[in-house]
């Protein structure tokens, strides 16, 4: 299935609030260890990296490995302190890149 993501990113938060970003991306995460019905090795095709930038800073990054199941789900929490852009980025074996952008507005009480 073509690379596409479901993301849930809050658009507003109070300063100092802990917010959660949830992501689910469609990807086969083919390990490279399997063989097809003709005995041929199925080439590896996985996502290798996921990262999140918040207001220009990298706040989360992870290296993905062949042991991760298809359609990886990643969720994480962080403290919202400034208004800024959020950029989620997935990179794959075949050079495929998927980027989801959003903006978080922080309201100061």
């Amino acid at each position, binding site marked *: *299935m073509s690379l*596409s993501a*479901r993301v*849930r990113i809050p658009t507003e938060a109070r300063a100092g609030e802990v917010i959660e970003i*949830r992501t*689910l991306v*469609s990807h*086969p*995460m083919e390990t490279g260890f399997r063989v097809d019905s003709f005995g041929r090795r199925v080439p590896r095709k996985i996502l290798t990296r996921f990262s999140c930038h918040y207001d220009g800073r990298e706040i989360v990054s992870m290296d993905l490995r062949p042991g991760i*199941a*298809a*359609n990886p*789900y990643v969720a994480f929490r962080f403290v919202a302190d400034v208004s800024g852009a959020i950029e989620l980025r997935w990179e794959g074996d075949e050079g495929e890149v998927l980027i989801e952008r959003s903006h978080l507005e922080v309201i100061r009480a």
Partner: protein
Amino acid sequence: MKCWLLLLLLATCCAGADQPDRRSGYSLLGPDLRALQDDDFANPGMLWVDRGERLWNAASGPNQQSCRDCHGDPVNLRDLANRLPRFDATTNRLDNLDMLIRQCRTQRQQAEALTHESEDLLALTTLVAHQSRGLPLEVVVDGPASTAFEQGRASFERRRGQLDLSCADCHEKLRGARLRGETISAGMVNGFPLYRLTWEGLGSRQRMIRWCNEAVRAKPMDPESQRALALELYLAWRSRGLALEAPAVRR
């Protein structure tokens, strides 16, 4: 007093025999997988619903028609998937959801045919089935459908494959028993199309039937054949009254 108790016991036994244990495969899931299915964000089957929505609005064929142009919002097809397969008296054959969408695609849209179990077809069937989530399965098995229904029942009870097992051997007589690490399900089909962790992907009822046939080392059925559709009709009837869960999550 004793007499009453005996009568009550008899009544419950009879009711049990008359009404087989129709429990959704959901009841066999652990708390983590139940939570995954119930969470409309994290449920991986929802990726196909998303894709289905994009396809629903995409124009194709010589007249650049989309599903939306004729059907409007997908919700208009609520109360359809839970009533399939159904017998079409004009063509004199059974249709399931895959067949209806494939026909619509080639005959009305005049677009390229969608192959069985392709990601695009699964996306559309999941989108349409998802609209009927929560509605009870209710298929018509009398009148013109009765012959197919009896064929389906016979097929369910017929032993097959090198292991010489019928569907009924496991899913009727041994349901709830253990088979290696798994509990044998009652063979309810209210979750389809569903996300199966074994497949790391989505599959239709026909894919599951094919998988089961392979597991008992029997010849797979052509998913378009009346034989396969009759079995699907019988399975849907066995699951009658259960709420549709598409896209469900199963192991």
